[in-house]
């Protein structure tokens, strides 16, 4: 019989998600048109600063840290071409950001595992968008975006039709 134990709490030293984040941002930085040295420094410094900010504050400044990473991603995205590698690099960087956010210090550890359904759905939508944007015969980026949003809307509608209680919280009068 397994003994009950309290869940472990994630600490600031948990670094796997941080390594993934830095790696993904550096990967994305290399695919952009920004000079590679500058892109690497910008991506590495931004991600490191965000990781340090969240670690020092013990998770209380997660919002500011996420904003910093988004800022870096925005700057890099502004200099990214419409190519397959840049597209997949950007998507992977954002997915890595979501995984890093899930691994918050002070909360129950193993947040990355619990966030997998959310991140998986995001990755699915991004995959649809990427495939629509680059691999289909009528490939273009707007088509990819529209395709991904269409998939999400279909999923949302299917979920809501399957679970009407999500919209109707009050119990029916006849029950």
């Amino acid at each position, binding site marked *: 019989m397994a003994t009950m134990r309290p869940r472990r709490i994630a600490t600031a030293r948990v670094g796997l998600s941080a390594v993934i984040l830095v790696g993904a941002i550096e990967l994305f930085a290399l695919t952009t048109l920004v000079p590679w040295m500058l892109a690497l420094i910008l991506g590495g410094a931004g991600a490191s600063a965000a990781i340090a900010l969240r670690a020092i504050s013990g998770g209380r400044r997660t919002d500011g840290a996420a904003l910093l990473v988004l800022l870096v991603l925005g700057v890099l995205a502004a200099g990214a*071409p419409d190519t397959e590698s840049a597209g997949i690099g950007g*998507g992977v960087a954002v997915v890595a950001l979501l995984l890093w956010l899930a691994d918050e210090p002070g909360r129950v550890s193993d947040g990355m595992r619990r966030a997998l359904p959310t991140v998986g*759905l995001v990755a699915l939508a991004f995959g649809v968008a990427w495939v629509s944007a680059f691999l289909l015969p009528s490939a273009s980026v707007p088509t990819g975006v529209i395709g991904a949003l269409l998939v999400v809307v279909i999923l949302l509608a299917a979920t809501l039709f399957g679970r009407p209680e999500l919209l109707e919280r009050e119990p029916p009068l006849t029950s």
Partner: protein
Amino acid sequence: MVLIAVPLLVAPVAAALVSPRPFPYAELSWQAVGDSGEVRIVGALRGRPTAATDDVTVAFERPADLSEEAPPRIEWWPGSVRFELHWHSSRPTVQVVSPPSVVWQDPVGLVERPVGGVRPGLVVERYPLDLLRLGAVRLDRTRQLPGKSRTHHIGTTGEFFGIRAAAPDEPPRRINWRASARSGRWLANEFEVERTGDLILLVDARPTALGEVVDERFLGVARAAATGIAGGFLRQKARVGYASFGEFLDAVPLSTGRTQGVRIGHAIRATRRSTIAGPSERCAVSLRRFYPPDVTTVLLSSLGGDATCDLVVHLWHRGYPVIVLNPSWRSLTPRRATLPPREDALATRLGHLERRMRLVATRTYGEVIDWDDLSSLGEIAQRLQRPVRWRV
């Protein structure tokens, strides 16, 4: 590079879609333990669905009257969240701790939902140390009942005191047949030994110039004192009434017995600092609707503003002999860490002088108890043993 926006747009929707079904629900069980000034609150939140408790966050609101000894200890177990809070009360108090706010937050931190469930508040009670000494206090008779007269007739329970409305299960020997025939309703005799007198406890819950923190601390002390005094006199079969005045008067009429103790307990715990201060005259006028004049009235007031001092005057004009129980400001004021020691001492001294002036001004219209030692109610016990003297 528009494609990078797709995951960011989709993430909140995805987080909402995969959030737990049905909505998270958690039941709270908690209790306050510890003796003396130690307030240790232990409890657990048992949640459904079980897996959702890993992402439940709990936030506690500490009453201003209690200080934090150590940071809260929260542990997430499979299906439950257990917590232990280490607080301290340096003075007697009765505080209602609000239930914690419990929210479910998805692991990424994009979606937040309040967790349903029944979560009662928790009452923390720390009474003055010598509460039991109040049991020896016997109040003077303070109310004139119609038909009251001294007789030599000794009833089964002592000297005749007066006539009151009969209870449905009143024994025939106690019914006053002549008075019942005259008035057309059942009236019964009441004897001295059955009662020691009547007492009104009045808490001034209006906001004062002392600030919210001091007001909250005063209310904590006032609740503790009112609980102790009411309990002590109810045990002696005295009739006790309780009223609190914020913007309006909330009153529990005079009565005796265990049920009255429960009623008063509920009223005391429901007493909150009001945001709007009602005029003092309204309090005195409203008091006459619930209580007859001449009943000894213990006013628990911080005397932190002119309005609170006026209340004594208005009560005196309406015929209530008042005993003001005023906790010392020094014991209620938080430490001013920002001030240098010299200025802090000066501020304390000025506060002390102002309080002395208010106490002196109040003494014209009622007895005043300078309640410096909050761990003891001995002074009010001594004062209540003597009849309240009228000053003109």
